[in-house]
């Protein structure tokens, strides 16, 4: 109850005064708990020009429980699992760090900040993190390639249609991914 009221407010806030580079839509008007977000790759990052789909799932206990956010668009990033759905390692979303008065707008801004500044010391993809630290050029090349391949067309929120597995991208991360996200990001489009 509190939950729905608050979500409505937050949604209104995010749609009327959206944070920079973030577009929020509600895929299903009757379900306030699933949001679709389009994240524009930050201009000064390797992800510039890409449009990334995020699926935000709000638990029924929201805001007492943290939302889960997954990339439905594949992205080459140390803190996002290189699979579908792309789970995000974001401190403030961890259950022991979540604070109920954290707003989704600021969560989404944090996600965008993560694209600007990856956190390789706390990686979900150890290989990409290593590459980011040791061979920045190669990392940037791979990240741009991913943007070209996956983040240029119309944004898809159905994780299964995130595109074919890339031969280029070996996926050691699948093993290290902690898979905290529920569901696959929803099939409503």
């Amino acid at each position, binding site marked *: 109850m*509190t939950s729905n*009221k608050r979500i409505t*407010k937050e949604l209104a806030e995010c749609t009327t005064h959206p944070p920079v580079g973030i577009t929020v839509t509600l895929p299903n008007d009757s379900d306030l708990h699933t949001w679709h977000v389009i994240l524009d790759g930050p201009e000064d990052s390797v992800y510039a020009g890409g449009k990334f789909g995020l699926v935000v799932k709000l638990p029924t*206990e929201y805001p*007492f429980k943290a939302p889960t956010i997954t990339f439905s668009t594949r992205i080459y990033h140390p803190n996002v699992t290189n699979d579908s759905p792309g789970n995000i390692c974001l401190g403030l979303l961890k259950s*022991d760090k*979540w*604070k*109920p*008065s954290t707003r989704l707008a600021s969560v989404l801004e944090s996600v965008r900040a993560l694209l600007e500044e990856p956190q390789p010391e706390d990686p979900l993809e150890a290989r990409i993190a290593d590459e980011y630290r040791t061979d920045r050029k190669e990392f940037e090349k791979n990240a741009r390639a991913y943007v070209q391949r996956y983040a240029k067309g119309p944004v898809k929120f159905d994780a299964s249609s995130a595109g074919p597995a890339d031969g280029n991208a070996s996926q050691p991360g699948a093993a290290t991914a902690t898979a905290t996200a529920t569901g696959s990001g929803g099939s409503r489009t």
Partner: protein
Amino acid sequence: MADTGDDRDVELGSLSAIFPEIQHPHPDDPYTILLDLPVTPSQAVTVFFPGPVDSAPPQGNDGPPAAGPGQRAAVDSHQLAHLPPLRLEIAFGSKYPAEQPPKASVSTSPPWLPAATIKQLEDDAARLWEDMGRDMVGFAYIDHVQQAAERVFDLVDVNGSLEVDPSYKIAILDYDIQARKAAFDKETYECGVCLEPKKGSACHKMLDCGHVFCVACLQDFYEAAIKEGNVAAVRCPAPSCAREREKAAGSSGKKRKKPRTYINPSELLQIPIDPETVKRYVDIKYKLELEADKNTIYCPRSWCGGAARSKKRKKPEGLELAEVEEESGSEDDDIDDGDQAEAEGKSKPYKAPDSLLAICEDCDFAFCSRCRQSWHGEYVLCAPPAEKGQPSAEENATLEYLRYYTTPCPTCSVPAQKTMGCNHMICARCQTHFCYLCAAWLSEDNPYSHFNEDSKGNKTSCYGRLWELELGDGDDVGHNFAGGPVHAPHPAPAPAPAPAPVPAQRVIPEIEEPDDDDDDNEDHNRNGRGRDNHGARDVRAAAGPALEAHADGGQVGIAREGPLVLRIAANRPAAPARGGAARRGGGRGAAAAVGAQQQQGRNQRGGAARGAAAQRGWRGRGANNNNNNNNNNPAGRGPRRREVPDVGGDFVLAPADQEWVRQFVQLALNDQEDILLMMEDDEGADI
């Protein structure tokens, strides 16, 4: 009253419109008004209370009370936004305004305002009246006082601090809290959780950080978190609240490394959270604290599992509301210790405690923190852990003691230990009358016949032994038993001095003595001779049969003593002289030989005799059993009696063999042969 020509009515009318809170303190005088003016400084004032509370009684309050010791004054200072209000009473006399100024009187409760200031404020009324050209001055005066109040009557010094007599401290601080609360309640806040605007009265301001949330959200959030056991979430719901405070603390140069993020139980109760939930919160927090501490020692009792007491932490008490408050009061002091302990715990994974003694804070069980057995003292090596199902050495010792120094009630089997008196016992539990020596049932009507000859001249094994063990059975019993006869009616034939008595101790206080002391004494006297004769030889004689007739007329007879036990009287047990027994006795028993003599005086069986008896051990008992074998005597109960080392005893077997056979038979009779295996080790050392 309403005199249209009276200027006062006009003035009071407008004043009442401006200050609707105006009161009339005297119902019969409409021209005296009373007004409370809040003293709310435009900037918070640092109020300090110099000196000890008992120093200066409120006298002028003008200067600082001289009694204050040195400069400790500034220590006790508080930032206050509200001071107790000014009470202003103005009387407009009948000649006002034309000829008479209004008479003002000013007071505060408590009287924190210096008398000089009050005087000046009061005089201002007349002065203003004069300045106004002796006209209606009511509003101008009130406004003047209000402005003065805003400046705290110019009492604040350049540093923005105000000195107030310490005896008003509590009242002034209380007022500030209440006024702040009232101001808070009137405000509107947007709750960061539900994002709704809420009145302050429906909100809670976090004590540590000052963030404001609505009570409903805090309740929902904290109660859900505590219900799930997620006590870590019980903190300020504002994002990065802790970090901000950390920064603030760091910039202010404070030493504290980490500001506290968790919320005190007392604050939860203030919100309010249901006390049951708060209790759960406290319990879980404490449990986590225990688990985080690698030095925590847990109680070895399987049904308890509490933690051992520790200086580092304090177990939360039941969590009555008052105790929570108390706990929170000392919380601040405890925190540094806690941090320190935490840091210690991290740097040193395990630190052996200073003492091995650990006491469970739940069940008060004292145990050794190393071997987890009940406390054995600092200077005793830890015993190896007992195997499951095997009784420990201590338990065996208890069982052994029970076998030696108690007689089971023949009806309910409760072990009974005689602390003093005759051998006619009444079970405290089931009221069965029985013989302490052989555990035979005794007739309620004539219990003493058991100790006498019956009509056919038969004698039981307990013939003449009513008063054996009069001072009690077992270690340290009987001597100081209050009210019991402790000395012998007979002259003691053997004048060996008894060692100093040891304090009485009733191990199993289940048995009460029969009241009829007279009867006992009669019996006692009648049987005196025979008893003494017996006593000389077998004070602790068991029901073992003597194969030869005793010279003392100890004729072998058979008597039915109870429904189940067939007794064969034996006046003369064949007790071997047992050096081993004496050795076992250690210091207490003096010497077995002396003990033998002392037995002659029944009532003088003091410590020495008892010491000797205590030494009898398995050997003495076995000696009888050895003989019993031949008679198929079910002497399971009887032979637990003490035995006097008797130099004239017969020897049938080599002592070592005897020993073993005795033990075995004895135990077999009790279905306890298995104990023999364990006992053999111990006994072996003695033999």
